[in-house]
Every structure is written in structure tokens, then in C-alpha cells.
């Protein structure tokens, strides 16, 4: 049985399940302390420092930590999860693992992470984009300030990356924070026309594989005329979506599932093509490169090109 990924605004059931799973995963009941994360960093000579409270963390915090560790590991032209060909397959693997945990904690093997079709909201007037149903008590709670209403008000941020020092800080637990539409570099969301540019690319990625190239991956990640598409959604939401600890806000997953859905649409139009292939391009970003995992066995981009063993999108079921 595979998970079905649906639009969070369309399916009340997937929305309720998503909130249940996020809140359950956020219980600090793992037996893992912040000091254990610090010891892990030191033992493996990872390029991170952790400071602050020695407190028990949640499974959700562990996923936040995994993302930051991957981001801290140089893997030119980018890091182990971003700014290169590995961006889309790494996040696919990461969300497969989160989705599996959600399925288990809910006891629903067909649960799929929902997506937010942000380009649909990008067609609205700027002033209305942060006032849609998504940012109400029935959905994600406040778009601006601390999240104090709705189901996600129950979640707590315990790990946060200081943007000045890069130090990972174990904080006194606090609510999620957002500043949607308040950054002058991203006053509005991506549009359908911008999304179409990413879908119209004929190549997944091309040399020099970095954030200057014209390719499906690089445009979807959002580096051309940046910040666009994926990056723009991070900047537009702001607050906890800004630093390397951005998975602190479940909006992270709504954004990335939508990015993954667009990649899946691109592959539907262009075939399951990935570049660089084996023995080509930068090590760590090739189709047979082992990706960095902290939950479950590592996978390669080739392993996740076809996601049908794990999930399907609603648009794929219509056909």
C-alpha cells in the first residue's frame, strides 16, 4: 500500500492526519538528549557546533537536526542536500522517511504528506496571499508572528540555527514563528507562469551543476533571478523557515512536497531522467551516489527516481 499525496486545501482528512502526525512526532519522548546530538557532532568531526539547553528532543527535532547536518556538509557545487543536482532526490528520500514515520504513528499505511500549491496562491493579490484559508485556525494558524492558534500551536521549536554564528542552539521550547509576506525580497509567492518555466526545461541538470545554470533542478530550487519558486517560499514565509533549521515549521514539508510534485510532473513529461549519471559530474551528486541519511538506510538518486513504491500524487490517480 502506498501513500496518496493530496492538496492540503482540498482534503480535510489528510489535513487532520497531517496535524495529528506532526504533533505526535513533536513529543519530546525519544530518550535522546541535546547532549547526544552534540556528542554525535564531535565524534564524527562534523562542521557544526551545538550550544544551549541539554533537553530531551522529539522525533520531529531529529528530522530538523538531520536537515541541518546535511546542509553543513560541503559537497561541491553545494552541500549534501542543496544547491546542486542532489537537491531533489535528497529531499525525496528525507520526506519518504518522515512519511513512513507518520504512517506508523497514525496506524495508516496509506497516509501521504500533503502539499501546498503555492503558485495558485501566487495568482492572488499580494495583500491577500497571507490571508487565505491556509493561514487560519482550521489550517496552519498565524501567518505572522508566533503560531498561537490552530493545531500547530501545540508544536514547539527546540533547535534553532543562529544565522550569525551558525551555532545550533538548543532553546527553551517556544512556538513556531512566521513573517509571511513581510520580506521585501519576496513580498509575494511564485506564480503559475514561473512554475511553467521550471516545467518547460528539457534537462534535469547541466554542467557546472551549480546555482548559475539553466536547468529544471536549478530553476525549481529557485536560484535563477533568486529567490524564486522553492527558495522564494522559504523567504516569503520567513521566521523559522529562514535558517537551516527550516523544517521546524511543518510548512517546510508542504513546500517540499509541492516541489517534489512538480519534479514528478516534469518527469511525467520528460521521462525519469537524472543527471549527472555514474562516473560523471561532481561526486556525491551522481545517480549512484549514496545520500546522507540519519533515519533508515541511505539511498541513491537512482533509488528514488520512481517514487511509486512509496507514494503517488492525486494528479497521477486521475489518469
Amino acid at each position, binding site marked *: 500500500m502506498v501513500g496518496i499525496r493530496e492538496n492540503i486545501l482540498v482534503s480535510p482528512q489528510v489535513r487532520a492526519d497531517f496535524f495529528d502526525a506532526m504533533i505526535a512526532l513533536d513529543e519530546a519522548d525519544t530518550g535522546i538528549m541535546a547532549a547526544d546530538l552534540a556528542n554525535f557532532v564531535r565524534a564524527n568531526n562534523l562542521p557544526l557546533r551545538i550550544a544551549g*539547553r541539554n533537553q530531551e528532543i522529539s522525533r520531529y527535532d531529529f528530522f530538523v537536526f538531520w536537515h541541518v547536518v546535511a546542509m553543513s556538509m560541503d559537497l561541491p557545487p553545494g552541500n549534501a542536500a542543496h544547491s546542486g543536482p542532489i537537491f531533489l532526490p535528497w529531499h525525496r528520500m528525507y520526506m519518504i522517511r518522515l512519511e513512513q514515520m507518520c504512517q506508523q504513528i497514525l496506524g495508516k499505511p496509506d497516509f501521504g504528506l500533503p502539499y501546498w500549491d503555492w503558485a495558485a496562491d501566487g495568482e492572488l493579490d499580494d495583500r491577500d496571499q497571507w490571508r487565505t484559508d491556509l493561514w487560519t485556525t482550521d489550517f496552519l494558524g498565524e501567518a505572522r508572528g508566533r503560531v498561537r492558534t490552530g493545531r500547530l500551536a501545540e508544536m514547539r521549536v527546540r533547535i534553532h540555527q543562529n544565522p550569525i554564528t551558525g551555532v545550533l542552539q538548543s532553546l527553551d521550547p517556544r512556538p513556531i514563528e512566521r513573517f509571511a509576506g513581510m520580506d521585501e525580497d519576496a513580498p509575494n509567492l511564485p506564480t503559475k507562469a514561473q512554475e511553467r518555466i521550471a516545467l518547460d526545461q528539457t534537462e534535469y541538470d547541466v554542467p557546472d551543476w551549480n546555482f548559475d545554470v539553466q536547468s529544471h533542478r536549478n530553476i525549481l530550487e529557485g536560484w535563477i533571478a533568486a529567490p524564486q519558486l522553492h527558495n522564494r517560499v522559504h523567504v516569503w514565509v520567513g521566521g523559522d523557515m529562514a535558517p537551516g533549521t527550516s523544517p521546524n515549521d511543518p510548512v517546510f514539508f508542504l513546500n517540499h512536497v509541492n516541489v517534489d510534485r512538480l519534479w514528478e510532473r516534469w518527469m511525467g513529461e520528460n521521462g525519469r531522467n537524472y543527471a549527472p549519471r555514474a562516473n560523471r559530474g561532481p561526486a556525491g551528486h551522481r545517480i549512484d551516489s549514496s545520500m546522507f541519511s540519519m533515519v533508515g538506510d541511505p539511498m541513491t538518486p537512482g533509488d528514488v527516481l520512481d517514487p511509486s513504491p512509496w507514494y503517488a500524487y492525486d494528479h497521477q490517480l486521475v489518469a
Partner: protein
Amino acid sequence: MPKSADKDLSMTLDLNSFTPPTGYKTGSGHHGHKTSFTSTRSALYHGRKIKIKTTYRIEIDGEPLTLHTVVTDDGKVHYHGLPNYAFASALDMAKAIIDAARHIPSIPDELGGHQHDDHSDHKGHDHGDHGGHN
């Protein structure tokens, strides 16, 4: 919600093993010890080779930033501390960093994370010969 399933998760949160990704050089990354960063952009134009080296050392209240700062081909500045941003200038970037750090509380360090280790390297960091990270 079936809380009993909570205890049966087959995928463990694994801190006992560490398998680096292909191509990763142990210890590389943003150590927090570098205080300047050089990007090299290069291009061929009408058969002529262009190379532009840009070095940033950015201080806030006299303290240098120690996370990677790079310049993209279109001249925008990218900073690892705010990984999804691309700034029109380094000044805009520094302002955004200050804004992002404005509400971070001061907390006692029970984890020893503010101590500097003994193999600090305060030299600059070169991002190599292309418009991106290396």
C-alpha cells in the same frame, strides 16, 4: 490516534552510526572558523577568458561572520546562514542577518558548544574556480 504504534517504529533514530555521503571529505564544511571567503567567477567571452575574484570579510559589531559567503554569476550574494536567500548586496545581506537574529534569546550553554576547539583555522576560505560554491 493509536499511541501504541508510537513505540513500534521500525526506523530508529540512529546516532550510533555515521555513514557520510559519497564524496564528502570528513571535516569539510562551514566550521565557523573562517573569517573571509573568496569566490571566483569565470567565463569565456569572444575567445577571451574572464576571471573575477571577490573576497568578503563581513563584520557585525566587530565580529566577523564565519559562515560561507559566495557570489553567483549574476552578482548576487549567498550566505549559508540564510540558505534560501540571494541578496543584491553584502550590505543587504548583513541587514537581513541582523533581522533574523533579532529575537534569539540568550540561553545558558549546558553543551559546551561555545568553546573553541584547538584546531581552529582563521585563514580565509577559497571557493574555487566557478561561480558557485567551489
